[in-house]
C-alpha cells in the first residue's frame, strides 16, 4: 500500500503575491539606498564648503583686525596695511572669477586659500566709504563642484570685519 505525502507546493497566486510584495519592498529599499547615497554626497560637499568658508572668514578677520589703512578697494580686490608680527605689511585680497579663487598676497609673497575653484562670488565693500573706512563687508558665495547630475551645493554668507587698529584721521594744519 502506497502512501502519498502531503507535499504542497506554492500556488500561482501565492507566487504572484509574494513577488509583488518582495518587489515593492526591495524597490523601496533601493530608492531609499539611492537617496541615502545622494544625501551622503551632498553632506560631504556641504562640509567642504563649510571648511572653506570658515577658513576664509578666520583669515580675513585676523588680517582686518589689525588693519590700519586701506590703500585701494574695488569690488574684486582690496589692498590694505595691517600689523603682522609687529610690522606694517601690505595685504591684498583678490577674487579671480575665472579660476573661482580668492587669493591673498602679503608684501610680494603669493598665497592663496584652500577654497580653490569653489568661490563663485566675492564682493568687497568698504563701509561707510573708502575714505571714512570703518568696516569691511564681504558678500561671499561658494559652490561645490557637484557630482553627476546632482545639483551643486551652495553656501552664501555676508561677513563683516572690523578693525581695532585704525589710524586716527589726522588733518594737516600746516
Amino acid at each position, binding site marked *: 500500500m502506497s502512501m502519498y505525502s502531503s*507535499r504542497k507546493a*506554492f500556488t500561482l497566486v501565492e507566487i504572484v503575491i509574494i513577488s509583488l510584495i518582495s518587489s515593492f519592498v526591495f524597490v523601496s529599499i533601493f530608492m531609499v539606498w539611492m537617496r541615502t547615497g545622494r544625501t551622503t554626497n551632498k553632506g560631504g560637499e556641504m562640509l567642504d564648503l563649510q571648511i572653506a568658508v570658515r577658513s576664509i572668514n578666520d583669515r580675513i578677520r585676523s588680517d582686518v583686525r589689525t588693519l590700519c589703512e586701506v590703500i585701494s578697494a574695488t569690488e574684486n580686490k582690496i589692498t590694505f596695511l595691517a600689523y603682522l608680527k609687529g610690522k606694517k605689511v601690505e595685504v591684498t585680497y583678490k577674487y579671480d572669477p575665472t579660476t573661482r579663487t580668492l587669493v591673498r598676497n602679503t608684501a610680494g609673497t603669493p598665497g592663496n586659500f584652500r577654497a580653490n575653484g569653489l568661490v563663485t*562670488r566675492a564682493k568687497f565693500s568698504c563701509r561707510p566709504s573708502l575714505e571714512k573706512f570703518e568696516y569691511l563687508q564681504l*558678500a561671499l558665495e561658494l559652490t561645490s563642484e557637484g557630482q553627476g547630475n546632482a545639483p551643486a551645493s551652495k553656501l552664501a554668507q555676508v561677513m563683516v*570685519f*572690523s578693525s*581695532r587698529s585704525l589710524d586716527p584721521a589726522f588733518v594737516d594744519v600746516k
Partner: protein
Amino acid sequence: MNLRCAENRPIKPNRALTMIEITLAVGLLATALLPVLMLTLRSTQQTFAMEQHLMASQFAAGILDRYLSMPFKASADAILSESFPKKVFDTEAFSEASSADGAFSETLKRTFRDFEYEVTVSKPPLANELSEMFKITVNVNWPANPGAPPTRQFSLNAVKFNENP
C-alpha cells in the same frame, strides 16, 4: 524487525515555507535595513544643522567685532539705541547684498530667512566699574525647521573696556 518498524513509523510531511512566513521574512529584512539607511540621512541633517551654527557664529562674530571696534561710549549708545530682536535679513549688510543678485539672494535667504539676533548690554557687578567696562552679548536664534519658532541659539559675548577711564 527493522523493516516492520520502518513501515510503522509515520511519514513526516516535507513541509515548505508558507506565504505568510516568506512575507514576514521580507518584512523583517526591510525593517532591519531601513534604520541603517536612516542613520546616514540623519548624519546629513546634522551637517546642515552644523552649517546653520557656523553661519550664526560668523554673523555674531561680525556684529560683536563691530561694537568692540567702536569707542566705549559710542558702542554702548549704538547698542541701546537699537531695538531687538531683529531679523538678520533686515540688517543693512544683508538687505543690500541680497538685492544685487537674484541667485545669490536665494542662497542667502535659504540659510538666513528665519534667523533673528539681539544684542544686550550687561553692567559690571561693582558700581565703581560702571564707567570702566560692560559686557556685550550677541544672541542669534533660528528654528530647527523652516517656519517653526526659533529653538536653536548661538551666543557670543565679550567685555568692552573703556580706553580712557
